[in-house]
């Protein structure tokens, strides 16, 4: 497949933005009291969000999970209000009700994020059903982890999506761990994509650190879905560089394993290709990095300077 240059640029931008955004969070959450609650990052896995979202149109939807930052940024979420929400501020995209874990950005068709593992698939099925019901030309992507595929809800959603030929793409971001459990400690089958056969659905395994491969496979699945051929399960093999959350000392992740995967970082891969092919010059790259840095710094400043919500605002937004 010939991937348009603009798409490659979009992916590079997404990769760099997510990485910068989350590296800042790693630092910020070391500062006591700076960011409340848990901090769950996808550092090293950014090519999945970047590649998948590059294959989508604005009218397509995503339903993501606890490890959502790169998905949301790639789908176009505003870094400022995202950061402010992560800081639990009133200016956050969800007024501080969500914090980092359930970021909802309906403006970019990411209408809800669930941190209940396995919560996404049935909801994605519902959204895809609405797209089908209304004959819209759009699809819904559901991001789940490898661990999430052991929840019953995943199974029920796969079956229903396939039965009804719904325009869903189930994206399994297999980062080799679910919490502290390695893939083989929670799932016997080697490729989670193999589960698709049980639903008469195509399942594919793709290098999740190769943004271009991610893009191409997601685009294929989208085309299938729009053609009325139903859902696809794509398993992206990738790796969680950091702990489950930032407070996780990663005692169970071998140092060498981390090193191997860091060597397979998705950023130099795409960047290198683009430099070699002359799609971007070193100067342009530098400018892009600087711009992204400024975006992230601006987002952090915005978040830091924003007020917390007033206590009684907790009472709002329960009912419409």
């Amino acid at each position: 497949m010939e991937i348009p240059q603009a798409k490659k640029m979009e992916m590079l931008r997404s990769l760099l933005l997510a990485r910068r955004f989350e590296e800042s969070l790693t630092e910020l959450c070391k500062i006591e009291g700076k960011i409340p609650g848990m901090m769950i990052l996808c550092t090293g896995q950014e090519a999945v969000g970047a590649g998948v979202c590059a294959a989508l149109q604005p009218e397509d939807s995503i339903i993501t999970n606890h490890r959502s930052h790169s998905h949301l940024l790639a789908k176009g979420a505003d870094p400022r209000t995202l950061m402010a929400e992560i800081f639990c501020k009133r200016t956050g995209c969800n007024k501080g009700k969500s914090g980092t874990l359930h970021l909802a950005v309906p403006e970019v068709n990411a209408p809800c994020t669930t941190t209940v593992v396995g919560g996404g698939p049935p909801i994605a099925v519902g959204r895809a059903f609405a797209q089908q019901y209304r004959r819209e030309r759009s699809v819904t992507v559901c991001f789940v982890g490898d661990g999430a595929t052991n929840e019953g809800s995943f199974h029920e959603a796969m079956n229903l999506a396939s039965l009804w030929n719904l325009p869903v793409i189930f994206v399994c971001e297999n980062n080799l761990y679910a919490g502290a459990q390695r893939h083989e400690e929670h799932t016997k089958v080697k490729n989670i994509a193999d589960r698709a056969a049980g639903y008469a659905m195509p399942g594919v395994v793709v290098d999740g650190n190769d943004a271009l491969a991610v893009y191409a496979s997601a685009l294929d699945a989208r085309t299938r879905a729009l053609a009325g051929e139903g859902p696809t399960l794509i398993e992206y093999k990738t790796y969680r560089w950091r702990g489950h959350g930032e407070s996780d000392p990663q005692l169970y992740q071998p140092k060498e394993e981390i090193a191997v995967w860091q060597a397979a970082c998705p950023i130099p891969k795409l960047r290198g290709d683009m430099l070699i092919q002359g799609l971007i010059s070193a100067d342009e790259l530098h400018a892009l990095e600087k711009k992204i840095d400024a975006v992230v710094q601006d987002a952090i400043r915005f978040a830091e300077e924003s007020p917390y919500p007033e206590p009684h605002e907790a009472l709002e937004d329960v009912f419409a």
Partner: protein
Amino acid sequence: MQQLGMGQAVNQALREEMTRDPDVFVAGEGVGVSIHDNPMFPTAGLLEAFGAGRIKDTPVSEAAIAGLAVGASEAGLKPVVEIMFNPFFTLASDMIVNHAAKLRYLSGGKSSFPLVVRMKSGAGIGAGCQHSHNLEAWVAHCPGLKVVMPGTPADAKGLLKSAIRDPNPVIFIEDMLLYFVPGPVPEEEYLIPIGPADIKRPGKDVTVVTWSKMLGVALKAAAQLAQEGIDVEIVDLRTLVPLDKETILNSVRKTGRLVVLHEATRTGGFAGEVAAVVMEAAFDSLKAPLRRVTGPDIPVPASPPLERFYIPDEQQLIAAVKEIL
């Protein structure tokens, strides 16, 4: 006026709302092609009337059914999904409690989930405790859900229509025995708002707060008590959330006496909420202790004499009323 069972009233409400709004659809196990061939059932004939595009038979997958409602509602459709028997709510409960009820709040009010979950409930069907287990107290304890539990066909129809138009998730609980108890239902279109309780019988001596099938028990007991000169006021909650505290409190302020009647098991049942509301806000009006008439703290047994023992009846209510007079 037409005489309908509650299932038929629900059926009419569904037909009217589906006709009015193309975004309304119905999904669940056997809501289209069914093992029942009974016009008294709520989804009878819908498939023929609206087609397989809007009447969606689903696999036996309660989480997916509920998730379907969550996702589709946020996208602007108006799902009315069915959980076949109340105990199977457990299987849908993550989607309903952690998602339908909370995702709006988590979004800071940006996303909405205008869905209806219909659940069939109640003892008396001889199927035992995995089919009969009234869990309205569960959903009433989940901020973000509205909870409706009508006691008459007319209320069911008007409330379901309101539920479908409500911008929030509504849990709509139907007692299955009521499908076979006909009652008057207005022919012309009407809505009954979610919230207000209804005084089904005014009285001055004792307030009986109840809902769903137990309304019938209350009415029968009240008729008997009336013959003995005891004048019972029956407050039919109809809606548990939001709870119409004013109607309850006004009634108790008038009568000074409260009995709460429900079919669910006693400990942790919603009678406790009613008791607490009254004890907080109408304490000075109270002339006598509370009485609760409820199912005992057992699973619903299958054998007829045992199941009858489980279900609260007129005699228990009459005894409770007399105890506090």
